[in-house]
C-alpha cells in the first residue's frame, strides 16, 4: 500500500494496516460531529435564545436582539470551522516537517510572529486594511518560522524536537512581550490589545471570511498535495532521500503551506495556540500515521475542536464570553505536558 | 603519614525501587592500599562505590567506617575522612582552577568562614601534588581531559581525606591521560598513604595499578585478592563472559588479559603456555 508498510520497525505498524473502511468511518463520523457542533454553536451562546428566535434569526428576521445574536453566530461558526481546520492542518504539517511531536503554530512562535508583524504594521506603519493584515501576517509567520528553526538548529544535533520547542517557546514569549509593548500606548487599545494577545472568533464578519477563504484554500491544498511526501519525511531524511523523495523541496512546500495557513488564521482570529498540537495527536490515534488520511482528518477535527471550544467559551461565562484562545490554552497545555511526559518523545 | 582508616561493607544490600543491585555483600577495603573494583557493565560496581561514599542508603546491612556505621553521622565529619570523585563531575562554567580546588576545603570550614592561610596552603600543596600549579589561574574549561581530571583529584586532595574513592576516573580519557592519572594516584598512595578504591573499566590497567582487586558479577563479589592471584582465564570467563589468555605483562610483570575472538588467533587454545604467576 504505502512505503511505510514495508518497515516493520515503525511504532504504528498495526495502525497503518487499518482498513480504509475504518478510516472512512472515522472521517464520516467526525464530519457528522462537526455538523452537530455547528448547529449547537448557533443554538447556544452567551445569550439564551428560544427555538423560535433561532428559526427567526436563521430565516433573516433580525428585528429582535436575540434574533440578531443568532444571525451573528453563523459567520462566527463558519470562521471557527475555517480557522480550526487551518490550525489543525498547520499543526499536522509542522509536526511532519520537523518530525517533532510538540510542534504547533503557537508553540513554535509562528502565530506569535504573525501577530507581532500585524501589530508592528498597525502601530508603526498605520496599516488599517484587513487584506494588508493578511499579507503582513503571512510574512510575519514565515519570518518567525525561519527564525525559530535557525535558532533551534544551532549546535549539536541540529533541530532536535526539544531544542526546537525551546527555541519556539522562548521566541514566542519574546514576540508576546514585544506585542504588549507596542500595543500599550494605543488609545483604542482595549479590544485590539486583547485580540492580538490571545485569539478569538468574536469579530467574525462575512467580509473577513471571504477575504481569508482563498488564502486558506491555497494553504490547505498545498498541505494536501504534500501528504505523501510527509509520509516519507517521517522515515528520516536519509531513508526518504534514498526512496527518491526530494526532501528539501517537500519540506519547503509543506512548511510553506503550514505557514500560509497559520498566518491567515492569525490574521483573522488572532494567535490561538495548542490546536495544532492536540489535533494531530488525537487524529493519529484514530486513523494512523498515513498523512493522506491524517491531513483531511486533522482539518475536520481541528474545525470541530475550535467550534466546541467557542461554544464552551460562550456558555460557561454567560453573559460574557471567554475567547477561544484561552479555552484552547487551558485544554491544550495539559495535553502538551502529557506528551512531554511520555517516555518516547522523539518518536512521531 | 596518615593512620589507616578502615572502610568496609557488612551484609550490604542495595536496591533501586524493586531492582536489587547488590545483595548481602561483605567487603573490606584494605587500608593504605590501592584497590580496584572491576566487572562487566551493570554488575553493580558503581552502585557499591556510591554506597561506600554514602550517596546511597542501603536497603539492609551497613557501611562501616573506623568501626562505626556511616549512617547517621554528620555529613561534614564523613567528608573529612572519605572523599569521592564521581563519574561525571560538573565544573561551573568558567570557574578558575584554584577556585575549584578550593571547594575541596569546604568540610574543614565553618558555616560562614573565610579562607584561612592554612586553607590556601593546602590548596597550593594539592596543586603541587597533582602538577597543575601552572594552571592555577586558568579556567577549567580550557584544560584537556587529563588535566581536568587532575584538577578534580586536586580538589579531592584539598579535602585532605585519608580514603579516596573514584568512580571510573579514567573512562573518558585517552590512554596517555589514563596512565597519567593512575600514576598520580599511585604517587598519592605511596607518599601519603591514602587508601584508594576505584572502579575501573579497563581490567588491564586495574591489574597493573591495583594492590588488591575485587571482581564483581551480578551484585556479588566473585573474587578478591592481589591481581596476580585473581586474574585468571577462568575468572575472566566467569565475570566477563570472555574467552581470554592471561599472561604476564612484559612492561610491568602484572597479569594482562588478551581476549580471544573468532578471528586473528595465532595460538590455538590447546597450545597456549601456562600462565606464570609472578
Amino acid at each position, binding site marked *: 500500500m504505502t512505503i511505510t508498510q514495508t518497515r516493520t520497525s515503525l511504532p504504528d505498524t498495526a495502525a497503518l494496516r487499518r482498513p480504509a473502511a475504518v478510516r472512512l468511518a472515522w472521517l464520516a463520523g467526525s464530519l457528522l460531529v462537526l455538523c452537530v457542533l455547528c448547529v449547537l454553536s448557533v443554538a447556544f451562546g452567551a445569550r439564551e435564545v428560544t427555538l423560535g428566535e433561532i428559526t427567526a434569526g436563521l430565516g433573516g428576521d433580525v428585528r429582535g436582539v436575540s434574533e440578531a445574536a443568532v444571525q451573528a453566530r453563523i459567520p462566527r461558526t463558519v470562521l471557527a470551522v475555517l480557522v480550526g481546520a487551518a490550525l489543525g492542518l498547520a499543526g499536522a504539517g509542522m509536526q511532519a516537517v520537523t518530525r517533532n511531536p510538540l510542534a504547533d503554530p503557537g508553540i513554535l512562535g509562528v502565530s506569535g510572529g504573525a501577530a507581532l508583524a500585524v501589530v508592528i504594521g498597525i502601530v508603526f506603519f498605520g496599516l488599517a486594511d484587513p487584506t494588508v493584515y493578511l499579507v503582513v501576517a503571512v510574512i510575519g509567520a514565515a519570518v518567525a518560522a525561519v527564525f525559530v528553526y535557525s*535558532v*533551534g538548529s544551532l*549546535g549539536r544535533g541540529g533541530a532536535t524536537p*526539544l*531544542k526546537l520547542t*525551546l*527555541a519556539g517557546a*522562548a*521566541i514566542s514569549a*519574546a*514576540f508576546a*512581550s514585544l506585542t*504588549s*509593548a507596542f500595543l*500599550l*500606548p494605543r488609545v483604542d487599545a*482595549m479590544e485590539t490589545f486583547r485580540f492580538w494577545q*490571545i485569539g478569538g472568533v468574536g469579530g467574525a464578519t462575512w467580509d473577513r471570511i471571504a477575504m481569508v477563504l482563498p488564502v486558506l484554500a491555497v494553504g490547505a491544498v498545498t498541505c494536501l498535495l504534500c501528504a505523501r511526501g510527509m509520509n516519507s519525511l517521517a522515515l528520516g531524511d536519509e531513508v526518504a532521500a534514498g526512496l527518491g523523495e526530494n526532501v528539501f523541496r517537500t519540506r519547503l512546500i509543506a512548511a510553506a503551506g503550514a505557514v500560509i495557513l497559520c498566518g491567515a488564521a492569525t490574521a483573522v482570529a488572532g494567535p490561538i*495556540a*495548542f490546536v495544532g498540537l492536540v489535533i494531530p495527536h488525537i487524529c493519529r490515534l484514530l486513523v494512523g500515521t498515513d498523512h493522506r488520511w491524517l491531513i483531511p482528518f486533522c482539518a475536520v477535527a481541528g474545525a470541530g475542536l475550535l467550534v466546541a471550544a467557542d461554544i464552551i467559551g460562550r456558555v460557561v*461565562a454567560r453573559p*460574557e464570553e471567554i475567547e477561544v*484562545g*484561552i479555552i484552547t*490554552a*487551558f485544554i491544550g*497545555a495539559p495535553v*502538551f*505536558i502529557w506528551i*512531554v*511526559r511520555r517516555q518516547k518523545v522523539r518518536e512521531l | 603519614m596518615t593512620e589507616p582508616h578502615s572502610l568496609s561493607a557488612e551484609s550490604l544490600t542495595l536496591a533501586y525501587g524493586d531492582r536489587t543491585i547488590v545483595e548481602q555483600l561483605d567487603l573490606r577495603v584494605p587500608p593504605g592500599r590501592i584497590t580496584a573494583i572491576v566487572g562487566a557493565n551493570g554488575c553493580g560496581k558503581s552502585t557499591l562505590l556510591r554506597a561506600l561514599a554514602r*550517596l546511597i542508603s542501603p536497603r539492609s546491612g551497613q557501611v562501616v567506617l573506623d568501626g562505626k556505621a556511616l549512617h547517621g553521622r554528620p*555529613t561534614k565529619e*564523613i*567528608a573529612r575522612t572519605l572523599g*569521592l570523585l*564521581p563519574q561525571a563531575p*560538573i*565544573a*561551573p562554567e*568558567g*570557574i*578558575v582552577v*584554584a*577556585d*575549584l580546588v578550593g*571547594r*575541596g576545603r*569546604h*568540610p574543614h570550614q565553618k558555616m560562614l568562614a573565610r579562607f584561612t*592561610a592554612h586553607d*590556601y*596552603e593546602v*590548596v*597550593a600543596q594539592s596543586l*603541587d601534588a597533582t602538577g597543575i*600549579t601552572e594552571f*592555577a*589561574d586558568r*579556567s577549567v574549561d580550557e584544560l584537556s581531559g587529563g588535566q581536568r581530571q587532575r584538577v578534580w583529584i586536586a580538589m579531592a586532595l584539598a579535602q585532605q581525606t585519608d580514603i579516596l574513592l573514584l568512580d571510573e576516573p579514567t573512562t573518558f580519557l585517552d590512554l596517555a591521560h589514563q596512565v597519567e592519572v593512575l600514576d598520580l594516584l599511585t604517587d598519592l598512595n605511596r607518599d601519603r598513604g591514602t587508601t584508594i578504591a576505584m572502579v575501573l573499566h579497563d581490567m588491564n590497567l586495574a591489574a597493573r595499578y591495583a594492590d588488591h582487586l575485587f571482581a564483581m558479577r551480578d551484585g556479588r563479589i566473585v573474587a578478591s585478592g592481589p591481581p596476580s592471584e585473581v586474574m585468571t582465564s577462568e575468572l575472566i570467563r566467569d565475570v566477563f563472559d570472555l574467552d581470554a589468555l592471561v599472561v604476564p605483562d612484559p612492561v610491568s610483570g602484572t597479569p594482562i588479559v588478551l581476549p580471544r575472538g573468532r578471528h586473528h588467533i595465532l595460538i590455538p587454545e590447546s597450545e597456549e603456555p601456562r600462565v606464570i604467576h609472578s
Partner: protein
Amino acid sequence: MSVQTVVAGARVRRRHRGTVLAVLGILIVVVFAVTLMVGKSFYGPAEVFRVILGETVPGASFTVGELRLPRATMAVLAGFAFGIAGVTFQTMLRNPLASPDIIGISSGASVAAVFGIIVLALDETAVSFLALGGALVTAAAIYLLSHRGGFAGTRLILIGIGVAAMLDSAVTYILSRAAAWDLQTAMQWLTGSLNGATWAGVLPLALASAVLVPLVLSQGRGLGMLRLGDDSAAVLGVNVPRTRVLLMVSAVALLAFATAACGPIAFVAFMAGPIASRIIGPGASPLLSAGLVGALLVLTADLAGQFAFDSRYPVGVITGALGAPYLVFLLIRINRSGGSI
C-alpha cells in the same frame, strides 16, 4: 611559590567581586535618589532627604513620601527578590532557562493573587500569602510532573512552559471577569507594574524579605557546592536534600511575595542571574549580585518607563522588551556552544 600564586589569585578575584558589589550598590542608591527627585515636579536632594527623615515638607511630603518613596522601595525590594529567586532556580536546576518566571511559578503566584484580589477581595497581606500558596503548589506540581525516575532538565522546562501557558490564560480569564477591568490593572498582572504602589503593599514584601533573604544568603556556600553536582556536593559535606529544599522554598516564597506586591515583572528573575554571573565572575556565589542586579533593573526600567518615552509604560513592558531579546540571545549562545539544553 605555589601558595603565593594561589593567595594572590584569590585576592584579586575577591577584590573584583567586592568592587562589583560596591558599584552595584552605589548605582542603586543613585537611581533611587533620582527616582525620588525627578517627576512632574522636581524636588532637590535636600527636600527629599528631609522627607525621608520624617519631616513634613509642603508638597514634597505627599509626592515624595506617599508616591515616589513607596514606589522606589517596592522597586528595590521586588527587584532584589526576583533576582535572588531567579538565580537560585537557575543555579539549582543548572540551566538559565529554568527561571521561575519562565517555568510557570510566577504564573502560579499571579493566578492566586489575582483570584484573591478580584474574586475574594482580600487585603494585601492575605493576597501575599495566597500567592505564596499558589506558587508553592505550582512548583510542586511542576516538579512532580517532570520527575520520572530521574530528572531531565529539559523536560522540566517544557512542562513549566506548558503550565505557564495554562495559568496565564487563567489570569487573563479572571481579569476579564473583573467588573472594573481596565488596561492598567491588566498590565499589572500580566507583566508587572509599580503603579499605585503603597506602603501597605510594600510591608508584606519587606517583612518577608527581612526573613527570607538572610536565610538564602546563608546557604550561599551550599549553593556554590551544588553547582558541582549533587554527588560532589554531598561528598564535600553538604546536606544536599536539606539545602535544596531550603533554597527552593525560600526562592519560591520570595518570588510569590514580590509577585503579590507588583505582579510578575517580566523576565527580571530570568535576566538577573546570567547578568550577575557575567559581571561578578564564575567562581563567586551569584546570590547577592543577582539580587542587586534585579533591584537595579527594576528601578531603572521603571524610571525609563515613566519618563523616557512619550507615553508611560509599566515597568514590566520595559523589562519584557529587554528580557525577550536577551532570552533569545542566551538561547542562541547556549545552542551554539553545544551546551546542555
